[in-house]
């Protein structure tokens, strides 16, 4: 069985260990011990090759676990996040603050502002939680249905652990103790003109608040500064958007003017602040059916994010540094 196989990466001081072949077939003859003693410890690059090979084998044989949502941590951590990490660490130089406000275990709902024409801010908010948070938490995002109807994007989003923004899925994830991320502004936020940068749009219908209330998890307001400037949207080709069934087709100073080169985002400096959690457990799950309370809580979260955005903008020296 492939599950039972162990890939020996580090065999220092493990002279008595049987060879790879012997591990698979118990009848194989034990090697002479001196053969093994002579082996030098594997170099760093060899260990990397070994783990890359093991990864490749798992992919080729379909031997990896996924959860009910299609979340594939093996692929998400080793491929997807590894691929985008340099962009956020080196290019946008994401600076995360207030990570201590994100609980190490249990369900929590992270609510953030949305911007940037292309929703890169979502990945930007997820990366520090995986890399810098002591519990290395995966952020399970709630995405628009457009995400799940696009080829290539849809399966990647599922494999990265994201799901459709609907109350059923949100509550299922929160009940399971996952950290869930939501961007209530939706396309109104990502696709807003550059002139309206850092002005929060309407926060949907407060569906995220009722999901948090029903499951009794804290709401963590998250403010992202820097993503507004990556693709400054100065126009929108509405007829083309209607034709393609997209929410907007952006015009930026470089796109479509410079063609593919215009797809390169501007290297803005990012600040992400994870705010103090707003507890909901004491309100009880029945509070989700009280529209006034839901509206008030929605406003509170929105105000918190807006004020934090202003504060962060004051602290920022310039867009690019």
């Amino acid at each position, binding site marked *: 069985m*492939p599950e039972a*196989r162990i890939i020996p990466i580090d065999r220092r001081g493990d002279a008595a260990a049987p060879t*790879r*072949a012997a591990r*698979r077939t118990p009848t194989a003859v034990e090697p002479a011990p001196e*053969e093994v003693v*002579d*082996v*030098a410890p*594997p*170099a760093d690059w*060899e260990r990397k*090759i*070994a783990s890359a*090979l*093991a990864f*490749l*084998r798992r*992919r*080729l*044989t*379909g*031997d*990896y676990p*996924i*959860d*009910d*949502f*299609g979340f*594939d941590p093996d692929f998400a951590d080793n491929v997807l996040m590894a691929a985008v990490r340099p962009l956020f660490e080196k290019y946008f130089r994401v600076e995360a603050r207030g990570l201590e406000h994100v609980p190490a275990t249990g369900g929590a709902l992270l609510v953030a502002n949305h911007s940037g024409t292309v929703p890169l801010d979502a990945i930007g908010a997820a990366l520090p939680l995986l890399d810098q948070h002591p519990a290395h938490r995966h952020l399970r995002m709630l995405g628009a*249905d457009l995400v*799940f*109807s*696009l*080829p*290539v994007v*849809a*399966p990647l989003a*599922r*494999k990265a652990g994201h*799901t*459709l923004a*609907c109350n*059923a*899925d949100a509550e*299922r994830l929160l009940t399971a103790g996952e950290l869930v991320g939501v961007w209530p502004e939706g396309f109104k936020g990502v696709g807003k003109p550059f002139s309206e940068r850092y002005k929060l749009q309407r926060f949907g219908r407060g569906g995220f608040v009722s999901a948090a209330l029903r499951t009794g998890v804290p709401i963590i307001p998250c403010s992202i500064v820097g993503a507004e400037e990556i693709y400054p949207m100065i126009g929108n080709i509405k007829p083309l958007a209607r034709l393609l069934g997209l929410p907007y087709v952006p015009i930026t100073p470089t796109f479509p003017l410079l063609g593919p080169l215009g797809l390169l985002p501007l290297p803005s400096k990012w600040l992400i602040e994870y705010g103090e959690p707003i507890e909901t457990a004491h309100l009880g799950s029945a509070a989700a059916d009280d529209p006034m309370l839901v509206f008030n809580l929605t406003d509170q979260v929105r105000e918190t994010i807006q004020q934090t955005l202003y504060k962060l903008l004051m602290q920022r020296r310039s867009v690019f540094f």
Partner: protein
Amino acid sequence: MSGRRILVTGVSRQLGGRLAAMLEADPSVEKVIGVDTVPPQGDLGRIEFVRADIRNPLIAKVIATSEVDTVVHMSVVATPLTVGGRSAMKEINVIGTMQLLAACQKSASVRKLVVKSTTAVYGSSPKDPALFTEDMEPRAIPRSGYAKDSVEVEGYVRGFGRRRPDVVLSLLRFTNFIGPTVDTPLTRYFALPVVPTVLGFDPRLQFIHEDDGLEVLRLATMTDRPGIVNVGGDGVLLLSQAIRRAGHVPFPILSPLVQSVGQVLRRAGMVDFSPEQMRFLQHGRVADTTKLRERFGFTPRYSTLEAFDHFIAARTLNTVLTPERIAGIEDAVLDTLERRRTVHA
């Protein structure tokens, strides 16, 4: 009191035949009547076979004369080719169910109805929640084929339930059956050495092992477990993952071309896939089985993954890439590296 008298429709098909045999073996069952339009493939033993079309009123006579107390309806067919076209399939599925339900409604002896339905009634679309519970409505109502028929069948069954509240009604929504002996379009699909998939999509699939599925049908028939319940194995499998586990090679096709490739495969008699199943291969579907475990009281022995592995282990599929071969290549590379180090030392 005399024993149970059970009528099973669709008994000439593999699943129906196996269920009838299981019920017959139960000592509390006096009589099992099998009904189908075609004669059974194998020997049905002591099962009384009635070759009748459930589309005509003869079925009412069978129920009345044998004083049937339980009706198990599992003759809703998914494959038009096996019954001679889509219109015949629709007639068998919808008109057949209406006739059967009409007969049950008039019968004084019937006190239980078990219907084998499908999770296909939830449809398949990008707007679907990750898991469907029994009370959820489909986001995109199935508009063709088996799924549409099943939606209509369920509608009539619910109507029957309202008119005869005294009858115990179990509506079982099964995910795709899989296992060593199942023969469905999906098992044939996975038997293809090069498996066509929709480019850029990788749906989540869920299976129920044939033994688990039959046990659920048997439990619903022999004991009172009313209500609508999803029946599926735990966990999910990605299509790409399933193809890899079978040792086959996926062949992604651009979505505009999917329909025509499906038609070619259909004409060649390899895989009888309808348009709504093509959509299923794009968006997948997963059902929540909490109710099955907690209310219905049954925990499947096989998870989705185990059921699929049992299916591939029992068949000699034309394997291209075996796990052993891949592990062999890996070991060869690692051994080369190790030998290089030994020489250095």
